[in-house]
């Protein structure tokens, strides 16, 4: 009961926050007009641009939905491949010493290269199509996933491992039934951080080389001096990012049980 109340209170505060921000934004842009004409469009203008961009192909040749689908396809492709390869890599590195010794030196070096620094070489190798952009996302996601899974598994409590040993569990069974479940919260944190990295990667990739996508849309809008469309692009990215994070949190609630 008390929790519900404070939950509602939190929602109230969040709501008031948003209203205040939008009001201040409106006052600054439309009423006091602190920026030169058109450089800071008001919330009303943004909403108009958003709605018209749903049908309009100008100035970049595609409607908003096409850009969203284009970016999302790349992000999800790269993200899933990065997670599917990154999870077992991190798990086996953390659990099996020979693999750790073999892979970690290379990995520790590679992770020092910022994900965005891969963009030029990947475009040289793979061009600028889906494959290339997904590869850029992959690099970003893979590194983040491995690091988080690895440290999550490494933090498994020794005494919990002992509990399983006493009952005769094998090394692999301990991984499956003790180390993995106890690392699950870290793994999900890693998945959420990697999702952020994935979006970072796609926007950067599309700013450099693309024919569609939200990053590309922002880039063209900037060249046309369309501040309103730039902001629409930013807000769309933010909303989709928030929505995907929300989905991941739902999945987390299904899998992570019995913890705060």
């Amino acid at each position, binding site marked *: 009961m008390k929790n519900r109340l404070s939950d509602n209170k939190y929602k109230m505060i969040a709501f008031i926050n948003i209203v205040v921000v939008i009001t201040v934004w409106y006052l600054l842009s439309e009423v006091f007009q602190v920026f030169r004409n058109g450089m800071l469009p008001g919330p009303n203008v943004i909403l108009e641009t958003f709605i018209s961009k749903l049908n309009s192909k100008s100035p970049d040749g595609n409607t908003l939905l096409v850009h969203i689908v284009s970016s999302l396809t790349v992000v999800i492709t790269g993200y899933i491949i990065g997670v599917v390869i990154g999870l077992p890599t991190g798990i086996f590195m953390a659990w099996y010493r020979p693999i750790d010794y073999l892979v970690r030196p290379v990995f520790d070096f590679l992770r020092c290269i910022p994900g965005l620094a891969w963009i030029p070489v990947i475009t040289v190798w793979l061009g600028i199509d889906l494959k290339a952009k997904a590869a850029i996302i992959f690099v970003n996601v893979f590194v983040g996933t491995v690091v988080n899974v690895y440290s999550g598994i490494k933090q498994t409590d020794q*005494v*919990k491992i*002992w509990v399983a*040993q*006493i*009952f*005769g569990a094998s090394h692999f*069974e301990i991984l499956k039934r003790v180390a993995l479940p106890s690392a699950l919260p870290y793994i999900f944190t890693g998945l959420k951080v990697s999702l952020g990295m994935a979006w970072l990667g796609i926007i950067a990739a599309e700013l450099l080389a693309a024919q569609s996508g939200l990053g590309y849309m922002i880039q063209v809008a900037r060249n046309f001096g369309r501040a309103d469309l730039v902001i629409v692009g930013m807000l769309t990215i933010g909303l989709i990012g928030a929505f995907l994070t929300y989905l991941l949190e739902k999945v987390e609630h299904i899998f992570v*049980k*019995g913890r705060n």
Partner: protein
Amino acid sequence: MSSILKINNINKIFINNNGSDKAVLQNVNFEVEENEFIVVFGPGQCGKTTLLNIIAGLEKQSSGQVFIKDKLVEKAGPDRAVVFQNIQLFPWLTALKNVEYSMKIRGFSKEEYHSEAMKYLELVGLKGFENSYPIKLSGGMKQRVGIARAYCTKPDVMLMDEPFGALDAQTRYLMQDEVLRICNTEKRTIVFITNNIEEALYLADRIVVMSDCPSTVKEVVKIDLTHPRDRTDSEFLRLRKEISAMVNRKR
């Protein structure tokens, strides 16, 4: 009577971070008879947990041997189930699943481990809490789950490391009675560690009194009081005084 557990000249020396040696256990010897309730009583930080871990096969002694049923202990196994000092339930499993876990891993069939787990949860008085996660259970209830989890594997020896150390006095008394009740329902050999002399006297058939670090067995005291014991009984108080005096630190 035959002794089921033999602790033979155990020594343990840890290497500190700065490279110096730290002797924790020194020539520890004692034997435990079948179905006996042994309490190992010693001051804090004297190496009780270390000794228990060595008996369990979780830590290596520097020298000496542990025999269970005349077999040399070399690694951990279900014949020596442990109830750890801070319980260590798996937070991601319900009470029932925590208990089932110990049997599941040993290859029992699903019906078997389910009905056994239910039986032992009932034995420790947790009927109705099968599906609660540990986070929803009180300290005493978590200890009950820990006991059920160790008990259901039918170990030759149950090793209990200050299981009630973190409980409030009221719950502690209650759990002491509970542990005696459980042990009388299904006889087991128990090695129970505590730094609380009253608890030792209330539970033990024999008390192994340990000295301060490096720890050795000062004396083994047979407690002939009948159950249920009265903590204010004159003989109880006399023993309490006598044993306390043995471990009084001369510092």
